[in-house]
């Protein structure tokens, strides 16, 4: 009798576990996540959180990397995946146009296609999850400048090269936002170009300091630039200029802090963990038919809120993740371990 009871209890327990495990919105679904190449720490953070979120909903997630960081190698991976017939493929594309034939073949075979990090062209995808909209980055940066300058004074931009598309988009966004009355007392004195070389970025920072003694803030929307500027300024105890921009926590650890001993109070970068999580939920929403990738649709992610699908600059549709993540004295040590 005791034995029977224990068997019964165990059965109940197992059944209970199974039903709780079956509570996800993507039970038994198979999703393949395709990276650009193996060994990209930045991407792997997003992939890990994609996997965690997807598996949390009961889906099986395979993270697949091509043998080389080329479109041709990704085509081979996609061929393999089409054979496996997963419910969805989420890809970070190595080339904008080259994957179109294969991704169309996948969609024709009934596989949903989403993308994040780096988009394939609009015909190749149903939806793209954009880490941070251009305007959102511009807004965060101009507000940081406003805050650090105390609402007025001179500031400068240290960029990468003058032709870099993403850099120019952010700079233009900042300039446009700065026309607002709120920022009227801020004076942008120069946009310098450090070409993403540490030495040249340092030289350009020095030139900015020499030419504009009243300079209050340098904003560098490039990881190389922000590190070079932060190092140079921190090495000058008398220099009160503050640095902000887009940077990597691991590289900025030494220079980030709220006191005068640190040159950078805070800076920004996309939240790769959030990107992975949101992409997983967007992909599951595609599988379940909650969204089709058309403009104007929206879906809700528990704990993150509602996201709507908007028109992307490339003519396709995208889901904008939102504001970039702020790295400051409170979180930098922990985040530096990640990226």
């Amino acid at each position, binding site marked *: 009798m005791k034995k029977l009871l224990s068997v019964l209890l165990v059965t109940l327990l197992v059944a209970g576990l199974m039903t709780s495990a079956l509570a996800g919105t993507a039970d038994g679904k198979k999703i393949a996540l395709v990276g650009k190449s193996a060994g990209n720490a930045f991407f792997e953070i997003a992939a890990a959180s994609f996997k965690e979120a997807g598996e949390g909903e009961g889906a099986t997630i395979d993270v697949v990397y091509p043998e080389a960081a080329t479109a041709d190698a990704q085509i*081979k991976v996609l061929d393999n995946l*089409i054979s496996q017939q997963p419910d969805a493929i989420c890809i970070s594309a190595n080339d904008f*146009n080259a994957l179109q034939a294969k991704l169309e073949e996948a969609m024709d075979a009934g596989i949903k296609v989403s993308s994040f990090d780096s988009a394939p062209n609009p015909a190749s995808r149903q939806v793209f999850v954009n880490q941070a909209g251009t305007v959102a980055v511009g807004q965060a940066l101009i507000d940081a400048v406003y805050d650090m300058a105390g609402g007025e004074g001179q500031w400068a931009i240290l960029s990468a090269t003058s032709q870099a598309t993403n850099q120019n988009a952010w700079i233009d966004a900042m300039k446009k936002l700065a026309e607002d009355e709120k920022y009227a007392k801020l004076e942008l004195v120069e946009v310098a170009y450090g070409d993403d070389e540490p030495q040249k970025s340092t030289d350009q920072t020095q030139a900015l300091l020499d030419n504009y003694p009243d300079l209050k803030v340098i904003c560098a929307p490039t990881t190389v630039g922000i590190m070079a500027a932060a190092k140079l300024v921190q090495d000058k105890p008398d220099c009160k200029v503050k640095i902000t921009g887009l940077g990597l926590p691991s590289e900025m650890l030494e220079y980030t802090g709220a006191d005068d001993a640190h040159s950078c109070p805070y800076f920004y970068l996309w939240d790769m963990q959030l990107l992975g999580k949101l992409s997983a939920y967007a992909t599951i929403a595609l599988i379940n038919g909650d969204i089709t990738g058309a403009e104007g649709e929206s879906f809700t992610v528990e704990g993150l809120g509602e996201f709507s699908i908007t028109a992307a600059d490339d003519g396709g549709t995208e889901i904008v993740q939102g504001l970039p993540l702020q790295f400051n004295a409170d979180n930098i040590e922990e985040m530096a371990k990640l990226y």
Partner: protein
Amino acid sequence: MAGKSGRSINNVPESPIKKLIFGWEGILILVFIGVNIFCKWFSEYYNMFNLLRQMPVYLAEVFLMLVMAFILVMGEIDISVGATVCLAATMACIASNAGIPFPLVILITLLVGTCCGLINAVILTNFSELPPMIVTLSTQIIFRGIAEIVLGSGGSISVANTAGFKAISRKIGSVPLILFLVIILAVFAAIVLGRSTFGRKVYAIGTNRLAARYSGVAVQKIRFIIYTLMGTAAGLCALFMVASSYGANTTTGTGFEMDAIAMAVFGGISSTGGKGNMIGGIISAFIIVCLRIGLGQRNVNGQVILLIIGVLLIAAVALPNILGSLKKAVKK
């Protein structure tokens, strides 16, 4: 002499049937069957339909192997073909985007490839003392350099009108067009290398170039033809590469020369010249293709697949030597 099959194990009787069974080709056929049994067991998706669907991307490289085999049999090498593929693919896209009718686009692509081959051929035959490895290394850099300049800062180009390229990547039934083309050209190449006077002269050059020359073989003429054709094959490969991605970029064709050489060497074609035959090369090409598809279908890491193929290659090259020394040890 060990006969045409470079890997034939010593003292195998020369009866043709026995030679096929015990020679390197026999082993390759067994490996081919073994690989397919393994893949079928390893991957639940490994079936004829998926195999035929996935094959085209890999088959484009087999065109290169067909001519590379001739070059290797001569005891020489051409490492510029990957770059030639890149340049020809770039030109194919440009030609297509310029509104040129598709049959002419095909012609232009083949012509660009042929011209690249011709450049190698002219240099190598006029300065016959230059090592082919160094000459084709230089042209590799030059061809890819030109492609990169043409492609500009974006580094990639895509075709606007894909109709023509869609047509060449279509299937007849469930068999892709490219497979028919590969088989036809492979049979042709096998006959030329194995059964024609031209082929025998190629073996003669590879065995002893000087002796061949003194016995009246027009060594430079044959080298000229083969290096030029190598370019044409790269043009053909480029055409199908564009068909798979509707475009070209600076990485198109990277490493293709090594893949082609690997297929040939695994097939028993010795890189020191004079040995091996086309049948071995073709079987080994299909072994590699099947293995890559089978392993890939279960998401085996791309680098691991390359590693397995690398180990197989080393084994293939070392096996005849190991068997030879084993035999000697047994005799003692």
